[in-house]
């Protein structure tokens, strides 16, 4: 579990904080690293379902409609889990980081306040959409889902406004350590929001698209070659594949912006020890005491990527005192490399499918492609988590860049280790249960028997005497 790596990797050098900052960070990493997966589904799954429903209604395609109905059941489970894990984060803002909230709560209230509106709309229309399949007429039902997709994106913009503000704080006046004036517009549309927000929304669509496609790719490998599986793969895979090149462009832009706005984070990501020109790019490698081991060194390439010229000056770690450098440089750099590498793997899968479609108007037939299709889902997920590690660990030791350290923000309460333990156990159970439930859904669909409506009653026997469904 990467959260534990973050924990062990960042255990040193963060200054005083009552000793709670390490478990507090580990807990935030666990809960946010878990929730971010569900957030991706919350942002993008409605769109995927709506595309299937649109195709189904437009072409009277029963298979597409069936996919939409089934996907919305899975979406129901994921949205419910996401709603509660998201609430945990709202509490943790205060329970783990009261120092942050005491000073900057007003500022952070602005983006999260807007997020509240979109969370409401999402939850309300999810209730209508998920439970409206039976009684609402076709297109009316479709349109009841559109607000979910739109508010998912708008909610993501709001949350990313808060996160990017922590990277590029602005739009407020400090006086004696107290925020005395705030410019709402500048808080929301801070300098980092411009690239962080599209980067995250695209990531959400890619994670969702490729993960759903993975399930059907696995089915294809098991010999389920029907149209149901082809469409189940095709719709989400196409969404992910189309967005991959866009994401690579946005990510590249983001990296250059980080190099200029948060040079120390960039130096940590790219192993730039000293500020200089003609900086080499390292692929992989471990960073120990200022030296890179086992990395592939590409001379001048980092300078070239940052400023399109080998003579570009790149700020190094030596620009700030050691206490203000991010911890766990190897973790940061490998996460960054993994994210970029996996993005190109996803690009390759998309290009392969495009080529096959161009030549034969069909998806590739060779099993290798379907194996690749299976890998794409976890690959997108890992890439997204790696990117999140880069932005969060790379900002350390700051919680609000250059204004407040994470130890200043952490709670003074003891016992964070206890809540951390509780959270790890709870989330492990929650994660396992969620996956089991999704597998159960898929098994039920495959058996295709269709449950009797009465079987839906929580632990109650059926009205008509039947065989018991389990222990009585």
């Amino acid at each position, binding site marked *: 579990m990467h959260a534990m790596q973050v924990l062990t990797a960042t255990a040193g050098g963060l200054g005083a904080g009552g000793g709670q900052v390490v478990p507090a960070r580990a807990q935030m990493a666990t809960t946010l690293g878990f929730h971010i997966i569900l957030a991706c589904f919350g942002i993008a799954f409605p769109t995927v379902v709506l595309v299937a429903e649109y195709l189904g209604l437009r072409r009277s395609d029963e298979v597409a409609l*069936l996919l939409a109905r089934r996907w919305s059941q899975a979406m129901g489970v994921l949205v*419910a889990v996401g709603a509660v894990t998201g609430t945990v984060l709202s509490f943790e803002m205060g329970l783990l980081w*009261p120092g942050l*909230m005491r000073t900057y709560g*007003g500022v952070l209230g602005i983006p999260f306040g807007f997020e509240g509106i979109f969370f409401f709309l999402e*939850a309300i229309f999810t209730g209508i959409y998920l439970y409206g399949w039976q009684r609402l007429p076709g297109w009316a039902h479709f349109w009841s889902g559109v607000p979910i997709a739109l508010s998912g994106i708008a909610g993501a913009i709001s949350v990313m406004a808060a996160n990017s503000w922590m990277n590029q704080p602005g739009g407020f006046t400090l006086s004696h350590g107290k925020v005395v004036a705030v410019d709402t517009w500048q808080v929301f549309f801070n300098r980092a929001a411009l690239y962080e927000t599209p980067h995250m929304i695209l990531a959400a669509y890619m994670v969702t698209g490729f993960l759903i496609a993975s399930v059907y790719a696995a089915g294809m490998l098991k010999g389920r070659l029907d149209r*149901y599986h082809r469409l189940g793969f095709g719709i989400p895979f196409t969404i992910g594949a189309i967005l991959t090149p866009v994401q690579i462009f946005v990510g590249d832009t983001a990296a250059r912006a980080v190099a200029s706005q948060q040079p120390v984070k960039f130096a940590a990501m790219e192993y730039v020890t000293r500020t200089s020109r003609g900086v080499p790019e390292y692929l992989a490698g471990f960073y120990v005491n200022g030296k890179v081991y086992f990395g592939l060194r590409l001379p001048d390439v980092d300078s070239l990527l940052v400023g399109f010229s080998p003579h570009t000056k790149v700020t190094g770690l030596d620009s700030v005192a050691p206490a203000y450098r991010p911890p766990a440089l190897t973790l940061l750099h490998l996460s960054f490399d993994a994210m970029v590498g996996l993005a190109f793997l996803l690009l390759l899968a998309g290009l392969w499918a495009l080529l096959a479609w161009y030549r034969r108007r069909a998806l590739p037939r060779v099993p290798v492609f379907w194996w690749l299709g299976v890998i794409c889902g976890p690959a997108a997920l890992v890439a997204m988590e790696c990117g999140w590690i880069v932005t969060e660990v790379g900002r350390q030791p700051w919680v609000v860049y250059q204004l407040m350290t994470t130890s200043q923000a952490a709670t003074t309460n003891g016992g964070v280790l206890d809540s951390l333990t509780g959270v790890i156990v709870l989330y492990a159970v929650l994660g396992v249960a969620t996956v089991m439930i999704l597998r159960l859904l898929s098994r039920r669909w495959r058996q295709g028997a269709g449950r009797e409506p009465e079987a839906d009653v929580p*632990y109650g026997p059926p009205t008509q005497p039947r065989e018991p*469904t389990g222990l009585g």
Partner: protein
Amino acid sequence: MVVDAVGAILLAGVTLYALLGGADFGGGLWDLTAGGYRRGRAARQLIDATITPVWEANHVWLVFILVIFWGSFPGAFAAVMTAAALPLWLAVFGIVLRGAGFAFRKEVETVRWQRVFGAAFALSSLITPFFMGTVIGAIASQRVAANPPHAVLSVWTGPTSLLIGALFVTVCAYLAAVFLTREASQRQDDGLRRYFAWRAGAAGVISGALSLATLIEVRSSDPALYHGLTGKALALVIIAAACGLATLGLLATGRMAGLRTLSVLGVAAVVWGWGVAQYPALLPGTGLTLASGSAPHAVLVTIVVIFVAAALLVGPSFLLLFWLHGRQLLEPDQHADKRAGTGD
């Protein structure tokens, strides 16, 4: 003044969460006490059908409260989150177990697993409102300091806190039973209507008794709050008592007209009674008031704007959801399980 408007918005959020979220918690409590597998079937079915499409939207009020609280009154938020960390953590665990348990219970097939997730849902419906209530009690009874160094058990284990925790639980049960009585009556299920009417009455009487006990307790332990409740908030206290008694009367005579409205008004009057009694104090006993503890002006204005936008966008959406739900147009999809028709 804009800070008073923001205070009112926060209290409105608390009221709506207490009414809507509270009724969903209460549903879990009645699920917990519905009895065995066979006996509790009908009640559980009605609870499940009533809560399913709306609980997530109702739950968002909690997030709304948290965000408005930390955005408008950041210092008080940090103080409460530090001083009352333990009951808040327990409530957080309850929230996770409850939502996940409820969602998972629908999807599992064997009775054994339905019991496991059902128990998680029902038990956490008991502990979550209790611990939330103790935190409100801690604030009201002057136990949260303005700048607490760390959490102390005595912050939330005073008699006022425990009484308010218990009151939260019984009020949730009361609201849920009233709503379910009406729901059963609309479905023309006379047996269930009587079943829940009886329980609504019992929960109402216990809630009334606990309210009275809290008032008596506060009289000696917290004269400022008592003075507020029997002074400037007296009208609201009387409205709450009158609505409660009227609801009990309607329940006893089996009349449905006005039942839900009166019960809702009664509970809302209690919440606003607390708010008015405490006004203008933010954290009673600390000297921190709404005005002195508030975020900069621009933030407050933004929050008012957010509230207006929410009222315009979220309000009608909620009405649509409740209207569709009231007409029983929202129910779990049965067709998704059908076999794919076009295998080749």
